[in-house]
């Protein structure tokens, strides 16, 4: 029998798994080895919160049944890769064993980023990213009355929601003047901040962490803010962002910076080594977005792309219109296309909000060309395919406003006052264009 070529994939998250699945779909001739030190099987990281809140069990957040991998001949290796020796195509594991590969895909994801605060190492201080973090949280949240969360992003708000289901009083510290200030425009940020305030024990905007204070047992007892205020807590969650998880590549012959450096074909400096997902850093992003794109959907697309490159022919990574979604307690958020937190040059935007219903919509369009650039919605679901078409076809804003309802994706019988939205937008259009 002819020895099959082996593709090794480091990381069994959405990027690595998508790559493995699509390689198998396109070709039967490779041996695929999927390696992870975090979990034996792929689980949905975005669902960790639901595990903690008791909505689902661990087996429910695995996207594929356990027999899926064998059926698709994807070999699973539950091991920690300590080193990569690119010059001899070999992975070295923590247990000293080695694995030879023909092609290597690095999809090792992210790890939490903290800022070296004094007291980070104390008991009861933790981040939230991995399965292991969640297990730690189970222990740390026992007998806790008050918790503080630092970092006004998506993981922070998830952690707040999680802890509240255990009856813990949560104080949420946000550095920006409103929630998720580096992504949301002010109006949306304010709306979400108000919603958070109605759920949380305490939301502190414009507040930064200075120091973490210990009790006599070496556990966290309080935090001090930069304003000098002390806030009591027995649990501190640091959710101040993530960075590429590439520690194991130190001293290897693969070029890295913050992430693993790749060209538009997702290829590293070694021709048979690729990097995808959160851990990849483009020399120059194909569409001019951030060179590191830490997003579920990007990971998925990179996985699909790399499978084509390996099995068929080189395919450049070319993501289309940006989209993302999230949920803040009870409010769903969707964004399509380009919506900047601060008004950019040559861009105008229309904004409608229903304060009682906690719904809003923003349309961003080009000030000169007049075409739709992006959409933000809170509390309303929109149809991805329709908006993509509008943005890609550069639909004029007036036409977008008049056809908005066509892009609605709310469940049947949900009511949105489309006429009011239309009138609001038309009024704003008149004011904006003299």
């Amino acid at each position, binding site marked *: 029998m002819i020895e099959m070529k082996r593709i090794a994939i480091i990381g069994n998250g959405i990027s690595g798994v998508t790559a493995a699945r699509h390689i198998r779909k396109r070709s039967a001739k490779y041996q695929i080895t999927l390696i992870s030190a975090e979990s034996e099987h792929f689980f949905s990281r975005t*669902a960790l919160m639901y595990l903690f809140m008791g909505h689902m069990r661990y087996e429910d957040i695995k996207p594929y049944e356990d027999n899926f991998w064998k059926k698709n001949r994807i070999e699973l290796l539950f091991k920690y890769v300590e080193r990569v020796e690119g010059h001899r195509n070999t992975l070295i594991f923590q247990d000293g064993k080695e694995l030879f590969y023909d092609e290597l895909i690095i999809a090792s994801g992210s790890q939490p980023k903290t800022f070296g605060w004094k007291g980070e190492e104390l008991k009861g201080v933790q981040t939230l990213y991995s399965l292991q973090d969640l297990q730690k949280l189970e222990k740390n949240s026992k007998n806790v009355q008050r918790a503080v969360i630092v970092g006004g992003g998506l993981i922070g708000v998830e952690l707040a929601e999680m802890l509240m289901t255990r009856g813990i009083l949560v104080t949420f510290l946000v550095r920006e003047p409103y929630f998720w200030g580096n992504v949301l425009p002010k109006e949306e940020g304010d709306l979400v901040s108000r919603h958070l305030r109605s759920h949380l024990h305490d939301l502190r905007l414009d507040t930064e962490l200075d120091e973490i204070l210990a009790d006599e047992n070496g556990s966290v007892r309080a935090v001090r803010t930069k304003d000098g205020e002390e806030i009591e807590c027995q649990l501190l969650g640091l959710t101040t962002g993530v960075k590429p998880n590439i520690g194991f590549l130190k001293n290897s012959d693969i070029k890295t910076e913050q992430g693993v450096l790749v060209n538009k074909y997702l290829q590293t400096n070694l021709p048979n080594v690729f990097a995808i997902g959160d851990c990849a850093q483009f020399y120059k992003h194909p569409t001019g977005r951030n060179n590191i794109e830490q997003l579920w959907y990007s990971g998925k697309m990179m996985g699909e792309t790399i499978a084509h490159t390996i099995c068929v022919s080189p395919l450049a990574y070319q993501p289309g219109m940006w989209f993302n979604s999230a949920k803040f307690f009870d409010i769903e958020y969707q964004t399509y296309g380009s919506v900047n937190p601060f008004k950019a040059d040559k861009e105008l935007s229309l904004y409608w909000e229903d304060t009682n219903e906690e719904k809003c919509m923003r349309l961003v369009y080009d000030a000169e060309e007049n075409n739709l650039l992006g959409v933000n919605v809170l509390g309303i*679901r929109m149809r*991805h395919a329709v908006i993509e078409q509008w943005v890609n076809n550069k639909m004029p804003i007036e036409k977008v406003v008049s056809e908005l309802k066509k892009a609605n994706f709310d469940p049947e019988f949900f009511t949105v006052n489309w006429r009011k939205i239309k009138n609001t937008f038309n009024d704003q259009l008149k004011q904006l264009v003299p």
Partner: protein
Amino acid sequence: MKELDENLSLSNGPPTQLSVLQKVSTFIGLFGLFVLLLATLNIDFPKKIIWLSISLIAITLGVFGFSYGLYANKSAGIKNNSVWSYSLTSRGLWAWLSGIVLTGFYIVLYFFPTYLGYNPDGSNSGLITLFDPLSIALSKNTASQWFVYGTLYTLAILVFGVKFIWKYRNNPYQRIRTFSVMFFQLGFAFIIPELMARLNNESFSLPYYDLKNIWPLNHYNFEQYRVDEFISAGTIGTALLIFGILSIFVITPVLTYFYGKRWYCSWVCGCGGLAETAGDSFRHLSDKSTFAWKVERWVIHSILVFVVFMTTAVVYTYLGYDADKYWLTKDIFLIGVVVVLSFVFVLLWVFKRKELKKDAKIGAIGYLTIIFALVGLHYSGLNDKVFIFEAETLRSTYGFLIGAVFSGVIGVGLYPIFGNRVWCRFGCPMAAILGMQQRFFSRFRITTNGGQCISCGNCSTYCEMGIDVKSYAQKGQNIVRSSCVGCGVCSAVCPRGVLKLENGKDVEESRYAEQPITLGNDGFKLNV
């Protein structure tokens, strides 16, 4: 590190204290049930009308108060916190206890009704007579065990319906749908048949008829005593009989074509009504494995074949005994059945063969061959019975195994163990017919919103029919499954707004086409 500690979500658990209101409500509700228990134990209540009212009102207030404590002080939104931690909803001790009590109730109701006070030789006593005042008010007749069951069933749908509406108050689809099942249960299943019974006298009699209960769910609708009654009741009776037949061949296919089977299963049906209201807390217990799906396909379609056999044999037996009474003769009827089945088969084979999986083809051909062989055998004179067994044997076996044990004892009794739609998923022959229509001849689908699924698993977990919804959604594929009852909970619990139940403009095959790549991955457009 090992994969994961067992019981991850259970190790710490939520705060479980009940509020004072919930404790009081539990007491009141249990008191209501206690009165029923006393009546069952033959305690003779002096003023039945008062004690019956006290009992039913106490049960109602108990559920309302408990639900108020659960939802009133929480913001509108998804309320699934700690579902997998509570004993009652995670197959713990309380789940088993309530499962045993419920199955016990069904066993007594179906097989030992004398314990409830049923007396075949004279007047009833015990629990049954407690319901006399209500029964007499509605139909002028004293209560039977079925009246007791019907009343409690309806009450369960109404009070837990209110709880459900509270829980999903952020979601108009859920609210309206629940109003609908409450309305159809109260009006069509409970009040109208009782009022119809009021019309009965010595010269005029209609069978007890829940108009929304369609054959083959209503497997006894065409039994001789009923058909005789229909026919002898003149125009009204004949109209009802024709309505029963039209429901099968016209009303059902048309509505399912436009709206999917949800118009029935989660908007009208009584079994569905109970599952959606009283059974809502157990929806996540359904088995999502592909193995369970395989079992489901064989079991539900085999029961459909069984009910077709049974009904054909029963009707065939009584046709022709009295040539004046029935214009339909035995032969025309049997040939008619063969023609209808062949028609359905050919329709599927010609237009939808590509979409039939291997086991569906084997099943369809296999069962059709068996039916034709049996009919052929009968006509060749080798067998005087149509389907080997006596029609009465088939009828009573079906009634016992499927009508009582499966739909009642297992289907409802084991809600807390196997989930709330076991009967609808594995057993209901009506669901099997509607499912075929939905899969092949309907505009209904659940649309996946482009590439936005994050594979979190909420949709699959909370699908009461055990559909692995996310396995489609994460591929960007729409969901068109025979078993989907369109309850809309997958769409409600989706944290990214990815799923939408819709009636499209057509039955186009693209409504469930697989998407090879994530929407928005433009590299493929340019290079492939």
